Protein backbone atom coordinates (compact mmCIF):
# COMPACT_ATOMS: atom_id res chain seq x y z
CA UNK A 1 0.00 0.00 0.00
CA UNK A 2 1.47 3.32 -0.96
CA UNK A 3 1.28 6.33 1.27
CA UNK A 4 -1.08 8.00 -1.19
CA UNK A 5 -3.49 5.07 -0.89
CA UNK A 6 -3.16 5.24 2.86
CA UNK A 7 -4.09 8.91 2.83
CA UNK A 8 -6.92 8.30 0.45
CA UNK A 9 -8.41 5.72 2.75
CA UNK A 10 -7.68 7.22 6.17
CA UNK A 11 -7.02 10.89 5.46
CA UNK A 12 -10.57 11.89 6.34
CA UNK A 13 -10.22 10.42 9.83
CA UNK A 14 -6.96 12.24 10.39
CA UNK A 15 -8.66 15.48 9.36
CA UNK A 16 -11.64 14.85 11.65
CA UNK A 17 -9.22 14.15 14.48
CA UNK A 18 -7.24 17.29 13.72
CA UNK A 19 -10.40 19.39 13.93
CA UNK A 20 -11.16 18.00 17.38
CA UNK A 21 -7.54 18.63 18.42
CA UNK A 22 -7.80 22.24 17.27
CA UNK A 23 -11.07 22.70 19.17
CA UNK A 24 -9.60 21.17 22.32
CA UNK A 25 -6.52 23.37 21.98
CA UNK A 26 -8.46 26.60 21.55
CA UNK A 27 -10.90 25.93 24.38
CA UNK A 28 -8.14 24.76 26.72
CA UNK A 29 -6.04 27.80 25.81
CA UNK A 30 -8.87 30.21 26.62
CA UNK A 31 -9.43 28.51 29.95
CA UNK A 32 -5.68 28.47 30.67
CA UNK A 33 -5.37 32.20 29.95
CA UNK A 34 -8.28 33.04 32.23
CA UNK A 35 -6.95 30.87 35.06
CA UNK A 36 -3.41 32.18 34.59
CA UNK A 37 -4.53 35.80 34.84
CA UNK A 38 -6.62 35.23 37.93
CA UNK A 39 -4.13 33.00 39.72
CA UNK A 40 -1.14 35.06 38.66
CA UNK A 41 -2.66 38.25 40.07
CA UNK A 42 -3.83 36.43 43.19
CA UNK A 43 -0.24 35.29 43.77
CA UNK A 44 0.73 38.97 43.96
CA UNK A 45 -2.05 39.93 46.34
CA UNK A 46 -1.11 41.40 49.71
CA UNK A 47 -3.86 39.33 51.31
CA UNK A 48 -2.39 36.15 52.76
CA UNK A 49 -5.46 33.99 52.17
CA UNK A 50 -5.84 35.06 48.55
CA UNK A 51 -2.13 34.60 47.92
CA UNK A 52 -1.86 31.18 49.48
CA UNK A 53 -4.98 29.78 47.87
CA UNK A 54 -3.46 30.62 44.50
CA UNK A 55 -0.22 28.97 45.61
CA UNK A 56 -2.08 25.81 46.60
CA UNK A 57 -3.85 25.67 43.24
CA UNK A 58 -0.62 26.17 41.32
CA UNK A 59 1.39 23.67 43.34
CA UNK A 60 -1.29 20.97 43.08
CA UNK A 61 -1.67 21.30 39.34
CA UNK A 62 2.04 21.61 38.69
CA UNK A 63 2.98 18.97 41.23
CA UNK A 64 0.91 16.13 39.80
CA UNK A 65 0.61 14.68 36.33
CA UNK A 66 -1.87 15.97 33.79
CA UNK A 67 -2.94 12.38 33.17
CA UNK A 68 -3.78 11.94 36.86
CA UNK A 69 -5.75 15.19 36.80
CA UNK A 70 -7.57 14.16 33.65
CA UNK A 71 -8.57 10.76 35.04
CA UNK A 72 -9.56 12.34 38.31
CA UNK A 73 -11.78 14.90 36.64
CA UNK A 74 -13.34 12.32 34.34
CA UNK A 75 -13.67 9.28 36.62
CA UNK A 76 -13.74 10.67 40.16
CA UNK A 77 -15.63 13.95 39.90
CA UNK A 78 -18.88 12.13 38.97
CA UNK A 79 -18.77 10.60 42.47
CA UNK A 80 -19.18 14.14 43.78
CA UNK A 81 -22.16 14.69 41.52
CA UNK A 82 -20.23 16.56 38.84
CA UNK A 83 -20.43 14.58 35.63
CA UNK A 84 -18.66 16.10 32.68
CA UNK A 85 -18.94 14.96 29.14
CA UNK A 86 -15.60 13.55 27.90
CA UNK A 87 -15.00 16.41 25.46
CA UNK A 88 -15.59 18.97 28.24
CA UNK A 89 -13.57 17.04 30.79
CA UNK A 90 -10.71 16.91 28.28
CA UNK A 91 -10.21 20.60 27.65
CA UNK A 92 -10.99 21.53 31.26
CA UNK A 93 -8.23 19.26 32.55
CA UNK A 94 -5.72 20.55 29.99
CA UNK A 95 -6.73 24.17 30.59
CA UNK A 96 -6.56 23.91 34.37
CA UNK A 97 -3.15 22.26 34.19
CA UNK A 98 -1.55 24.71 31.76
CA UNK A 99 -3.27 27.59 33.58
CA UNK A 100 -1.16 26.78 36.62
CA UNK A 101 2.02 27.10 34.57
CA UNK A 102 0.66 30.24 32.94
CA UNK A 103 0.01 31.80 36.34
CA UNK A 104 3.72 31.70 37.10
CA UNK A 105 4.44 33.33 33.74
CA UNK A 106 1.95 36.10 34.48
CA UNK A 107 3.38 36.67 37.95
CA UNK A 108 6.95 36.70 36.65
CA UNK A 109 6.16 39.17 33.89
CA UNK A 110 4.33 41.56 36.19
CA UNK A 111 7.19 41.43 38.65
CA UNK A 112 9.73 42.22 35.94
CA UNK A 113 8.09 45.52 35.05
CA UNK A 114 10.51 48.05 36.61
CA UNK A 115 9.44 49.36 39.99
CA UNK A 116 9.79 52.92 38.72
CA UNK A 117 6.76 52.37 36.48
CA UNK A 118 4.64 51.49 39.46
CA UNK A 119 5.96 54.46 41.41
CA UNK A 120 5.37 56.86 38.53
CA UNK A 121 1.78 55.64 38.23
CA UNK A 122 1.35 56.05 41.96
CA UNK A 123 2.78 59.56 41.77
CA UNK A 124 0.13 60.38 39.17
CA UNK A 125 -2.37 59.27 41.79
CA UNK A 126 -3.76 56.45 39.66
CA UNK A 127 -5.99 53.95 41.39
CA UNK A 128 -4.53 50.48 41.99
CA UNK A 129 -6.83 49.06 39.34
CA UNK A 130 -5.89 51.54 36.63
CA UNK A 131 -2.21 51.32 37.62
CA UNK A 132 -2.39 47.64 36.79
CA UNK A 133 -4.61 47.96 33.75
CA UNK A 134 -3.09 51.03 32.12
CA UNK A 135 0.56 50.92 33.13
CA UNK A 136 1.83 47.62 34.49
CA UNK A 137 -0.14 45.01 32.61
CA UNK A 138 0.47 46.29 29.04
CA UNK A 139 4.21 46.21 29.67
CA UNK A 140 3.99 42.80 31.31
CA UNK A 141 2.01 41.51 28.34
CA UNK A 142 4.92 42.06 25.96
CA UNK A 143 7.27 40.30 28.36
CA UNK A 144 5.01 37.29 28.76
CA UNK A 145 4.26 36.61 25.11
CA UNK A 146 7.37 34.54 24.31
CA UNK A 147 6.86 32.15 27.27
CA UNK A 148 3.18 31.90 26.33
CA UNK A 149 4.23 30.79 22.88
CA UNK A 150 6.03 27.85 24.45
CA UNK A 151 3.09 27.15 26.76
CA UNK A 152 0.68 26.96 23.83
CA UNK A 153 2.87 24.34 22.18
CA UNK A 154 2.95 22.40 25.45
CA UNK A 155 -0.82 22.78 25.58
CA UNK A 156 -1.33 21.46 22.06
CA UNK A 157 0.86 18.47 22.91
CA UNK A 158 -1.03 17.96 26.16
CA UNK A 159 -4.35 17.68 24.35
CA UNK A 160 -3.12 14.35 22.91
CA UNK A 161 -3.85 12.87 26.34
CA UNK A 162 -7.61 13.45 26.00
CA UNK A 163 -7.60 10.52 23.57
CA UNK A 164 -7.14 8.33 26.66
CA UNK A 165 -10.66 9.23 27.80
CA UNK A 166 -11.86 8.50 24.25
CA UNK A 167 -12.17 12.02 22.92
CA UNK A 168 -11.83 11.43 19.19
CA UNK A 169 -8.91 13.76 18.60
CA UNK A 170 -5.96 13.30 16.24
CA UNK A 171 -4.13 11.01 18.63
CA UNK A 172 -7.25 8.87 19.06
CA UNK A 173 -7.76 8.53 15.31
CA UNK A 174 -4.13 7.59 14.76
CA UNK A 175 -4.49 4.88 17.38
CA UNK A 176 -7.71 3.61 15.75
CA UNK A 177 -6.11 3.48 12.32
CA UNK A 178 -3.12 1.67 13.78
CA UNK A 179 -5.45 -0.79 15.50
CA UNK A 180 -7.28 -1.74 12.33
CA UNK A 181 -4.45 -1.60 9.77
CA UNK A 182 -1.23 -2.19 11.77
CA UNK A 183 0.35 0.49 9.56
CA UNK A 184 2.06 2.10 12.56
CA UNK A 185 4.56 4.25 10.71
CA UNK A 186 1.91 5.71 8.46
CA UNK A 187 -0.68 6.21 11.19
CA UNK A 188 1.50 7.57 14.01
CA UNK A 189 3.98 9.19 11.61
CA UNK A 190 1.25 11.21 9.90
CA UNK A 191 -0.12 12.31 13.25
CA UNK A 192 3.39 13.38 14.38
CA UNK A 193 3.79 15.47 11.25
CA UNK A 194 0.38 17.11 11.71
CA UNK A 195 1.21 18.01 15.31
CA UNK A 196 4.56 19.38 14.14
CA UNK A 197 2.85 21.53 11.53
CA UNK A 198 0.41 22.86 14.10
CA UNK A 199 3.18 23.80 16.55
CA UNK A 200 5.89 25.12 14.30
CA UNK A 201 3.97 26.40 11.33
CA UNK A 202 0.90 27.76 13.11
CA UNK A 203 1.49 28.51 16.79
CA UNK A 204 5.10 29.70 16.60
CA UNK A 205 4.64 32.10 13.65
CA UNK A 206 1.28 33.20 15.06
CA UNK A 207 2.84 34.18 18.37
CA UNK A 208 5.72 35.96 16.58
CA UNK A 209 3.19 37.93 14.61
CA UNK A 210 1.32 38.80 17.79
CA UNK A 211 4.52 39.94 19.50
CA UNK A 212 5.40 42.20 16.59
CA UNK A 213 1.89 43.58 16.28
CA UNK A 214 1.71 44.27 19.99
CA UNK A 215 5.05 46.00 20.27
CA UNK A 216 4.22 48.12 17.23
CA UNK A 217 0.94 49.05 18.81
CA UNK A 218 2.60 49.86 22.13
CA UNK A 219 5.34 52.01 20.68
CA UNK A 220 2.82 54.01 18.69
CA UNK A 221 0.50 54.56 21.62
Amino acid at each position, binding site marked *: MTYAEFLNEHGARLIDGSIITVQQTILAALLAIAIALVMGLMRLSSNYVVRSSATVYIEIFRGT*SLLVQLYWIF*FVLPLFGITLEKFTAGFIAVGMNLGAYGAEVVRGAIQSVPKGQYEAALALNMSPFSRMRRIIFPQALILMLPPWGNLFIELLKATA*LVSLISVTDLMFQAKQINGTTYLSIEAFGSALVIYYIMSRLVITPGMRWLERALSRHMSRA
Partner: protein
Amino acid sequence: MFDWKWDFTIEILPRLILATFNTLMAAGVGYGIALIVGLIFALAQRTPIRIINWSVREAVEFIRSTPLVLQIFFVFYVGPQFDLRLSPWTAGMIAIGLHYASYLSEVYRAGLESVPQGQWEACRALNLSTRRTYFRIIIPQALPPALPGMGNYLVGIFKDTPMLSVIGVAELMHTANALGSESYRFLEPYTMVGIIFLAISLPTAFGLRTFETWVSKTLGMSKSKK
Protein backbone atom coordinates in the same frame (compact mmCIF):
# COMPACT_ATOMS: atom_id res chain seq x y z
CA MET B 1 -15.91 12.30 53.38
CA PHE B 2 -17.70 11.49 50.12
CA ASP B 3 -17.74 7.77 50.57
CA TRP B 4 -13.97 7.55 51.01
CA LYS B 5 -13.12 4.02 52.19
CA TRP B 6 -10.06 3.91 54.45
CA ASP B 7 -9.87 0.12 54.61
CA PHE B 8 -9.80 -0.06 50.82
CA THR B 9 -7.17 2.67 50.76
CA ILE B 10 -4.98 0.70 53.14
CA GLU B 11 -5.57 -2.46 51.18
CA ILE B 12 -4.32 -0.97 47.92
CA LEU B 13 -1.45 0.98 49.47
CA PRO B 14 1.22 -1.77 49.23
CA ARG B 15 0.63 -2.23 45.51
CA LEU B 16 0.72 1.51 44.94
CA ILE B 17 3.97 1.84 46.86
CA LEU B 18 5.49 -0.99 44.86
CA ALA B 19 4.40 0.74 41.67
CA THR B 20 5.93 3.98 42.95
CA PHE B 21 9.32 2.28 42.80
CA ASN B 22 8.68 1.43 39.16
CA THR B 23 7.69 5.03 38.49
CA LEU B 24 10.85 6.29 40.17
CA MET B 25 12.94 3.79 38.24
CA ALA B 26 11.35 4.82 34.96
CA ALA B 27 11.99 8.49 35.76
CA GLY B 28 15.55 7.78 36.85
CA VAL B 29 16.51 5.65 33.86
CA GLY B 30 14.74 7.99 31.44
CA TYR B 31 16.51 11.00 32.96
CA GLY B 32 19.85 9.23 32.79
CA ILE B 33 19.36 8.59 29.08
CA ALA B 34 18.18 12.17 28.58
CA LEU B 35 21.21 13.65 30.38
CA ILE B 36 23.67 11.78 28.16
CA VAL B 37 21.83 11.91 24.83
CA GLY B 38 20.94 15.55 25.49
CA LEU B 39 24.64 16.36 25.86
CA ILE B 40 25.35 14.58 22.58
CA PHE B 41 22.57 16.58 20.91
CA ALA B 42 23.94 19.83 22.33
CA LEU B 43 27.53 19.15 21.32
CA ALA B 44 26.42 17.96 17.87
CA GLN B 45 24.89 21.39 17.38
CA ARG B 46 28.27 22.98 18.10
CA THR B 47 30.19 21.06 15.44
CA PRO B 48 31.27 22.99 12.37
CA ILE B 49 29.89 20.22 10.13
CA ARG B 50 26.78 21.82 8.66
CA ILE B 51 24.78 18.71 7.90
CA ILE B 52 25.12 17.21 11.39
CA ASN B 53 24.42 20.57 12.90
CA TRP B 54 21.29 21.10 10.89
CA SER B 55 19.83 17.60 11.12
CA VAL B 56 20.27 17.40 14.89
CA ARG B 57 18.68 20.81 15.34
CA GLU B 58 15.70 19.82 13.20
CA ALA B 59 15.32 16.49 15.00
CA VAL B 60 15.34 18.27 18.37
CA GLU B 61 12.73 20.74 17.12
CA PHE B 62 10.55 17.93 15.84
CA ILE B 63 10.69 15.93 19.05
CA ARG B 64 9.97 19.02 21.13
CA SER B 65 6.96 19.98 19.00
CA THR B 66 5.08 16.70 19.10
CA PRO B 67 3.27 14.91 21.95
CA LEU B 68 5.24 12.49 24.09
CA VAL B 69 2.33 10.05 24.31
CA LEU B 70 2.26 9.81 20.51
CA GLN B 71 6.02 9.25 20.45
CA ILE B 72 5.62 6.44 23.00
CA PHE B 73 3.06 4.72 20.74
CA PHE B 74 5.22 5.34 17.70
CA VAL B 75 8.34 3.71 19.19
CA PHE B 76 6.35 0.82 20.62
CA TYR B 77 4.33 -0.05 17.51
CA VAL B 78 6.72 0.79 14.71
CA GLY B 79 9.22 -1.89 15.78
CA PRO B 80 6.94 -4.87 15.06
CA GLN B 81 6.26 -3.52 11.58
CA PHE B 82 9.93 -4.34 10.94
CA ASP B 83 9.91 -7.51 13.04
CA LEU B 84 11.65 -5.73 15.90
CA ARG B 85 9.81 -6.29 19.15
CA LEU B 86 10.60 -3.86 21.95
CA SER B 87 9.33 -4.53 25.44
CA PRO B 88 7.11 -1.80 26.88
CA TRP B 89 9.95 -0.81 29.19
CA THR B 90 12.51 -0.53 26.41
CA ALA B 91 10.19 1.37 24.09
CA GLY B 92 9.07 3.63 26.91
CA MET B 93 12.61 4.45 28.01
CA ILE B 94 13.69 5.20 24.43
CA ALA B 95 10.71 7.49 23.85
CA ILE B 96 10.81 9.38 27.12
CA GLY B 97 14.63 9.50 27.12
CA LEU B 98 14.79 11.00 23.63
CA HIS B 99 11.96 13.42 24.37
CA TYR B 100 13.69 14.84 27.41
CA ALA B 101 17.10 14.67 25.72
CA SER B 102 15.73 17.24 23.27
CA TYR B 103 14.66 19.51 26.11
CA LEU B 104 17.93 19.07 27.97
CA SER B 105 20.01 19.76 24.88
CA GLU B 106 18.41 23.22 24.78
CA VAL B 107 19.24 23.72 28.45
CA TYR B 108 22.87 22.72 27.87
CA ARG B 109 23.08 24.92 24.81
CA ALA B 110 21.76 27.96 26.65
CA GLY B 111 24.14 27.24 29.52
CA LEU B 112 27.17 27.03 27.24
CA GLU B 113 26.09 30.13 25.35
CA SER B 114 25.72 32.08 28.59
CA VAL B 115 29.48 31.84 29.17
CA PRO B 116 30.98 35.02 27.69
CA GLN B 117 33.31 34.73 24.70
CA GLY B 118 36.01 36.42 26.78
CA GLN B 119 36.26 33.34 28.99
CA TRP B 120 37.25 31.22 25.99
CA GLU B 121 39.78 33.84 24.98
CA ALA B 122 41.27 34.04 28.46
CA CYS B 123 41.73 30.25 28.41
CA ARG B 124 43.44 30.51 25.07
CA ALA B 125 45.69 33.26 26.40
CA LEU B 126 46.64 31.05 29.37
CA ASN B 127 47.29 28.21 26.93
CA LEU B 128 44.83 25.84 28.67
CA SER B 129 44.01 22.68 26.75
CA THR B 130 40.52 22.21 25.27
CA ARG B 131 39.69 19.59 27.87
CA ARG B 132 40.85 21.82 30.74
CA THR B 133 39.01 24.75 29.22
CA TYR B 134 35.74 22.81 29.21
CA PHE B 135 36.08 21.07 32.54
CA ARG B 136 37.79 23.73 34.69
CA ILE B 137 36.45 26.96 33.23
CA ILE B 138 33.45 26.65 30.91
CA ILE B 139 31.34 23.88 32.46
CA PRO B 140 31.58 25.24 36.03
CA GLN B 141 30.17 28.51 34.69
CA ALA B 142 27.62 26.93 32.36
CA LEU B 143 26.29 24.70 35.12
CA PRO B 144 24.63 27.19 37.50
CA PRO B 145 22.46 28.77 34.78
CA ALA B 146 21.63 25.28 33.44
CA LEU B 147 20.70 23.76 36.81
CA PRO B 148 17.19 25.22 37.16
CA GLY B 149 16.25 23.89 33.73
CA MET B 150 17.81 20.51 34.44
CA GLY B 151 15.93 20.33 37.73
CA ASN B 152 12.61 21.29 36.15
CA TYR B 153 12.98 18.52 33.61
CA LEU B 154 13.84 15.98 36.30
CA VAL B 155 10.52 16.76 37.94
CA GLY B 156 8.93 16.95 34.49
CA ILE B 157 10.04 13.48 33.43
CA PHE B 158 8.77 12.09 36.73
CA LYS B 159 5.34 13.63 36.12
CA ASP B 160 5.26 12.33 32.54
CA THR B 161 5.92 8.70 33.48
CA PRO B 162 2.14 7.99 33.77
CA MET B 163 2.03 8.19 29.98
CA LEU B 164 4.04 4.97 29.92
CA SER B 165 0.91 3.22 31.21
CA VAL B 166 -0.56 3.43 27.70
CA ILE B 167 1.80 0.73 26.45
CA GLY B 168 1.55 -1.30 29.66
CA VAL B 169 4.53 -0.24 31.76
CA ALA B 170 3.48 -1.18 35.28
CA GLU B 171 4.06 2.18 36.90
CA LEU B 172 1.72 4.07 39.26
CA MET B 173 -0.98 5.07 36.79
CA HIS B 174 -1.12 1.63 35.25
CA THR B 175 -1.51 0.09 38.70
CA ALA B 176 -4.21 2.59 39.67
CA ASN B 177 -6.12 1.74 36.48
CA ALA B 178 -5.83 -1.95 37.27
CA LEU B 179 -6.97 -1.43 40.85
CA GLY B 180 -9.88 0.68 39.63
CA SER B 181 -11.14 -1.83 37.12
CA GLU B 182 -10.76 -4.71 39.60
CA SER B 183 -12.80 -3.03 42.29
CA TYR B 184 -14.86 -0.50 40.34
CA ARG B 185 -13.58 2.10 42.77
CA PHE B 186 -11.63 4.94 41.19
CA LEU B 187 -11.78 7.55 43.96
CA GLU B 188 -9.11 6.09 46.19
CA PRO B 189 -6.59 4.83 43.60
CA TYR B 190 -6.56 8.02 41.52
CA THR B 191 -6.55 10.29 44.56
CA MET B 192 -3.72 8.34 46.14
CA VAL B 193 -1.72 8.53 42.92
CA GLY B 194 -2.19 12.30 42.94
CA ILE B 195 -1.05 12.52 46.55
CA ILE B 196 1.99 10.32 45.92
CA PHE B 197 3.00 12.53 42.99
CA LEU B 198 2.65 15.67 45.11
CA ALA B 199 4.52 14.09 47.99
CA ILE B 200 7.47 13.37 45.74
CA SER B 201 7.53 16.29 43.34
CA LEU B 202 7.07 19.14 45.84
CA PRO B 203 9.97 18.20 48.14
CA THR B 204 12.12 17.39 45.11
CA ALA B 205 11.47 20.80 43.60
CA PHE B 206 12.28 22.43 46.91
CA GLY B 207 15.43 20.36 47.31
CA LEU B 208 16.57 21.27 43.80
CA ARG B 209 16.16 24.99 44.50
CA THR B 210 18.26 24.68 47.64
CA PHE B 211 20.86 22.77 45.66
CA GLU B 212 20.99 25.48 42.98
CA THR B 213 21.71 28.25 45.47
CA TRP B 214 24.27 26.05 47.17
CA VAL B 215 26.10 25.39 43.89
CA SER B 216 26.33 29.00 42.79
CA LYS B 217 27.44 30.01 46.26
CA THR B 218 30.07 27.28 46.37
CA LEU B 219 31.43 28.45 43.05
CA GLY B 220 31.57 31.99 44.46
CA MET B 221 29.45 33.39 41.68
CA SER B 222 26.72 34.98 43.76
CA LYS B 223 27.31 38.25 45.54
CA SER B 224 26.27 37.04 48.97
CA LYS B 225 29.04 36.20 51.40
CA LYS B 226 29.78 32.54 51.98
